[in-house]
């Protein structure tokens, strides 16, 4: 029982990090159709900016200032670059964000170097808050969880209860009609892009000091974010939350399962020749294939339910 609780809890922690990272992208992708390949780069920038700011004025101010800077950067990218590229179609947009990804990575390496920087958990949150199954949970991990849950509540309330949120929801599916009702859709797009980047930046601030702040961090988390938004459903915040937690739990559970198909075959009294080619495959443990499980889920979702769990339109 303890093991299940422990796995679920770890899955929840990882899932909420994925949610922070993917919520912004699901809005951007769902609303503007922009496959922002550079989204995780803003996550990385969040971590580096927080590292720099917290060196001078502490972690808590960095928690607010870094996402604000990222929001501004994101909004400017949308207004002065992406909007111009948009008229050449989605392929041009994809290539643009692909280029942006590498530009940001190179800039980060030029400024902060190729090795991880010393961005650490603040001392006043670096203690064990409670233990479960002999595993201690750091106060900072709980802080991250609380912030991510608060972020979901605020974002969901803004999107569903405010006029600005209603405009965003309507512009997700009918941008021309929203414009013809007198709402400035390009400005809405710019703000959503800025907000989406800020959310990724916030995730970077919170995760950079536990996952490590280094130039490859965008590449290591970038692809999984696309899995989350496709599985959850384009433009659906609820979908992003459910898919993040689902993928978080699937990955953490799979990593802890050291069983292979061969174990099962032996359990029912059969055996496969040790020289057989199949043996290599059936000897693979679930923990070994854990990294590909989210992508398998992505492929299955695209084949059987392209609109995702909670989306209202196909990819």
């Amino acid at each position, binding site marked *: 029982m303890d093991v299940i609780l422990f796995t679920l809890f770890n899955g929840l922690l990882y899932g909420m990090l994925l949610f922070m990272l993917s919520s912004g992208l699901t809005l951007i992708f769902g609303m503007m159709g922009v496959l922002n390949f550079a989204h995780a780069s803003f996550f990385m920038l969040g971590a580096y900016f927080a590292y720099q700011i917290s060196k001078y004025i502490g972690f808590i101010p960095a928690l607010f200032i870094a996402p604000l800077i990222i929001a501004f950067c994101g909004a400017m990218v949308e207004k002065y670059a992406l909007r111009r590229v948009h008229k050449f179609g989605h392929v041009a947009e994809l290539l643009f964000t692909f280029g942006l990804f590498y530009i940001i990575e190179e800039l980060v390496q030029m400024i902060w170097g190729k090795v991880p920087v010393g961005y650490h958990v603040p001392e006043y949150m670096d203690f064990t808050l409670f233990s479960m199954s002999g595993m201690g949970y750091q106060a900072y991990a709980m802080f991250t969880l609380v912030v991510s849950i608060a972020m979901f509540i605020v974002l969901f309330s803004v999107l569903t209860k405010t006029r600005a949120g209603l405009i965003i929801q309507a512009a*997700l599916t009918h941008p021309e009609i929203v414009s*013809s*009702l007198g709402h400035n859709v390009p400005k809405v797009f710019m703000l959503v892009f800025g907000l989406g980047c800020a959310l990724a930046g916030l995730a970077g601030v919170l995760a950079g000091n536990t996952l490590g702040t280094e130039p490859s961090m965008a590449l290591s988390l970038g692809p999984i974010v696309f899995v989350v938004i496709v599985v959850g459903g384009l433009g659906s915040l609820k979908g992003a939350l459910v898919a993040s937690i689902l993928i978080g739990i699937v990955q953490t559970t799979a990593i802890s399962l050291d069983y292979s198909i061969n174990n099962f075959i032996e359990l029912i009294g059969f055996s496969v020749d040790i020289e057989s080619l199949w043996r290599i495959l059936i000897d693979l443990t679930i923990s070994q294939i854990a990294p590909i499980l989210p992508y398998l889920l992505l492929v299955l979702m695209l084949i059987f339910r392209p609109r995702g769990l909670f989306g209202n339109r196909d990819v």
Partner: protein
Amino acid sequence: MLKISDLHAYYGKSHILRGVNLKISKGEIIALLGRNGVGRSTLVKSVMGLVPITGSIIYKNDEIVGNATHDIALKGIGYVPENRDVFPTLTVKENLLLGVKDKNAKAEWTVDEMFALFPNLKERADVSASALSGGEQQMLTICRCLMGNPEFMMIDEPTEGLSPQMVETVAELLKKIASKGISILLVEQKLTIALRLAARVYLMGHGKIVFEGTPKELEKNNKIRKEWLEV
């Protein structure tokens, strides 16, 4: 109120509007008639800035060609699209509230007035707009447009696919809107509704205006009707 001169519109290499000229005065109902594919919807989209165009569109003494769609809407032009584009994920009431352009401006039309006009919408105020019938969705899009206090409305095929009873309701609503001094450009395929409501009609063919006059004049002109309107 609105004067369109030598308007040309293009979709890629296709030349859709080929020098359209049209005029609407304050408080007037004008019908824009023509068969499918002659450019009627493109004309109203052009006025809203949704299509690349050349030419001139003067609205209340201002040239609006080149203006952004939301700026055109804020000048007082309302647009009801042909395919009843309600916002499907929002409720009926939320759809209406999104029609309000300026929260601080004095409201000429309120949600309560809309509900008084269409009790069906009131009963389903908190229901998702996608759950409404075709006729109810048409009412909702017209009401949503009215919530923005337009001085000039362009309504694209409001009676398309509606029951005769619903067509009657739409006609009554349009009369009520016009009685408040709002000019209406009514895009229609049928002559019947235009005969009942419009002061003047424009008939389009091959991206041009091929007839301009009163509905009675068009009704009497068999040659023009047969060539450009009847199937």
